[in-house]
């Protein structure tokens, strides 16, 4: 449903060209939750921006539902890492969440329903009439998530959304993402640098190499569908998968390449 | 490379403007009797540059600008530092200044004329009044910005009041003081020329008034441009001073 085909991105800056992403290729089926990890500077954000249409790749393409992505497509929502800057400070929480829905052309009552529902789902029903800067960091990120969810997107992109949030809040938000995903069945691409987080959340973990980036390996996560911060993270299988991903990242940092040509396949 | 492209475009844009100025009046699009074409104005300018009276007028304007600015600066710096160092006054200063500041300097023109006639002192009254407020506000921003913890530390270490000012307050306030100087310089020019225009004391403004009443339009426009050039020069000069003085301050100054 979402295919990233031989994505390549070269940045030109003052006479020098830097190949940030060399050849990244993976796909997602409808309703999958896939995590993308890689060492620092692996071009994770570049890849996400290409998928979202905010950035044009140098070569290769992104195909969503059979249509080539050329500028932000319909039915796609993004949650950024810097939540503080992505919410409009002159609008209340409710208005922030409602804004994309107006653009979608939905009518008043319908919009209100979706806004109420999504604020409820992220646990911020009481904060609807506050301004974003009156809320804590974790709450602001929830607002951004609520905004994305209310939009009822087909694909949700999340760019290291919990990197700037404290550990406790992060755990809550991770669970929130999984519960929303289970309820709504939306396809999610979750970029993170946190290895544990990627294994905990994903059905698959795509591990990237260092720049110029390629896919190191596509690791299927065969943990239970129902996950829990306490129990899942102490399972032996979790530890094994975590170690696998960790090893791959270490190898990537040392400039390693994938063991064999990687063809990324959707999980069963 | 980017910067030079921007500069190139800037030059092109400016030249395009000049070209329009020549073409539109000549082509009759703008009535040439109100708006002489560029070459006539340039000719008037060339005449001016060779004319001693012109330079004498420039000198007069510059003189009143400079004296007014210096007086305003010294007064504002002193008042600002004193106010900043006396906590009691501090609470009322803000609102009072917001109250007094919007009183337009030009309201004093009749008084100035009455008291000093067309002497330079009339212009000075206006220039000093206007520039003083401009600079004072900046000085107060600067004094407000002083870190109270740093001041406390100084006091605990036994710094005298004067030492505190010299070593803590002054360095913090300096960037603001210099910005105030820059803004004050520009206001001072406006008032200097305005005073000459309305009151008639010698200077560029007065020359413009004379040219207007004689309907010597190319002359008038050339003088207007002269005023503009003076404005640009003063701007560049004060920015240069700002950059130089603050260059040493980058380490002291917090993130802008």
């Amino acid at each position: 449903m979402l295919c990233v085909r031989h994505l390549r991105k070269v940045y030109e800056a003052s006479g020098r060209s830097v190949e940030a992403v060399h050849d990244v290729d993976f796909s997602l089926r409808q309703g999958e939750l896939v995590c993308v990890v890689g060492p620092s500077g692996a071009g994770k954000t570049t890849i996400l921006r290409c998928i979202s249409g905010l950035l044009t790749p140098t070569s290769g393409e992104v195909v969503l539902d059979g249509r080539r992505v050329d500028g932000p497509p319909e039915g796609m929502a993004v949650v950024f890492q810097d939540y503080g800057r992505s919410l409009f400070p002159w609008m209340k929480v409710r208005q922030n969440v409602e804004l994309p829905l107006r653009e979608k052309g939905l009518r008043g009552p319908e919009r209100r329903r979706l806004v109420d529902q999504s604020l409820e789902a992220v646990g911020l029903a009481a904060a609807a009439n506050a301004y974003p800067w009156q809320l804590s960091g974790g709450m602001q990120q929830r607002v951004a998530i609520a905004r994305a969810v209310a939009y009822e997107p087909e694909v949700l992109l999340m760019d290291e959304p919990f990197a700037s949030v404290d550990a406790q809040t992060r755990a809550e938000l991770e669970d929130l993402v999984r519960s929303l995903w289970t309820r709504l069945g939306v396809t999610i691409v979750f970029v993170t640098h946190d290895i544990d987080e990627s294994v905990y959340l994903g059905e698959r973990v795509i591990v990237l190499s260092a720049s110029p980036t390629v896919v190191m390996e596509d690791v299927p996560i065969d943990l239970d569908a129902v996950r829990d911060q306490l129990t899942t993270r102490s399972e032996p299988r979790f530890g094994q998968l975590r170690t696998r991903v960790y090893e791959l990242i270490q190898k990537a940092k040392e400039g390693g390449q994938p063991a064999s040509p990687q063809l990324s396949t959707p999980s069963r | 490379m980017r910067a030079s492209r921007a500069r190139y475009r800037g030059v092109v844009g400016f030249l395009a403007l000049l070209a329009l100025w020549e073409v539109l009046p000549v082509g009759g699009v703008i009535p040439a009797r109100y708006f002489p074409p560029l070459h006539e104005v340039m000719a008037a300018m060339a005449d001016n540059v060779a004319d001693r009276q012109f330079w004498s007028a420039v000198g007069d304007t510059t003189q009143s600008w400079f004296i007014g600015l210096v007086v305003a600066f010294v007064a504002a710096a002193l008042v600002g530092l004193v106010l900043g160092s006396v906590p009691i006054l501090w609470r009322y200063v803000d609102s009072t200044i917001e109250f007094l500041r919007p009183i337009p300097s030009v309201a004093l023109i009749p008084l100035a004329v009455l008291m000093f006639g067309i002497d330079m002192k009339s212009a000075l009254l206006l220039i000093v009044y206007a520039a003083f407020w401009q600079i004072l506000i900046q000085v107060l921003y600067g004094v407000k910005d002083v870190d109270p913890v740093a001041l406390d530390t100084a006091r605990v270490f036994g710094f005298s009041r004067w030492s505190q000012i010299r070593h803590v307050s002054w360095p913090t306030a300096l960037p603001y003081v210099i910005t105030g100087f820059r803004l004050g310089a520009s206001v001072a020019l406006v008032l200097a020329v305005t005073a000459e225009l309305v009151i008639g004391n010698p200077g560029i403004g007065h020359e413009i008034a004379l040219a207007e009443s004689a309907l010597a339009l190319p002359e008038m426009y050339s003088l207007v441009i002269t005023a503009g050039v003076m404005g640009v020069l003063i701007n560049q000069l004060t920015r240069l001073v700002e950059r130089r003085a603050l260059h040493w301050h980058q380490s002291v100054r917090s993130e802008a």
Partner: protein
Amino acid sequence: MAGVTNAFQRLTKIFLVPAVLFVAWFASSRDSTSFFFPPLRKILEAFADTWFSDRWSADIVPSLLRLAAGFLIAVALALVIGVPLGHSKRARDYAEPALEFFRAIPPTVMIPVLLVISGVGDTSKVAVIAFGCIWPMLLNTIEGVRSVDSLLKDTCDIYRIHGLTRLRVLTLRAASPQIVTGMRTGLSIAIILMVISEMFASKDGLGFTIIQFQRTFSIPEMWSGILLLGMIGVALSLLMRVFEMVVLRWYEGARERG
């Protein structure tokens, strides 16, 4: 209850020192025989006599109307020209030097120019005010639009918010702190231009009237005019402040939280 005490405290802060100064002026000038500085009492009498008459409609109202017209035209033009320039680096590159030059011309020298072009009437005065006070507003609008947070722009791109909606919801709101600062400066320039244009060449208006008082040596009346101008300056500044508070309510709060 706290709100009332708060408001009272704020008012005291604002008016205390001016009130003290005023009383000092009154007391110190009580027995003044100076030609230039008559007793404040006389000035106040002249104030009542002069301005609470049909000068109100003959002079004060026309002045203020011209001021309003010039100022509002400048605001509109600043937005119309400034927003596109803020969006396009190319356009900015071309326009910047020319704009910097125009901005450096002391606005009052345009008064004779406009006098020549459109005579002594209202049009030239409104034009002078507009042409003079537009520069800070224009430059601030350009800067405000240019520096809109890129993440907010990305958000609008993602949710496909473009065109007029984007202008209303993002661009103008994000740039409003800058624009309003420009408006403040523009207002004080506008007031100066209103007064000067009337002092230089006019048949009515506040500036004209006050200069007439000076020329006919009606000193208390002249002072009353100066007082009036001061009051108008302060009143307009307060109005601007109220406007700022309404438009930028969110900004104050957001800035406090850093």
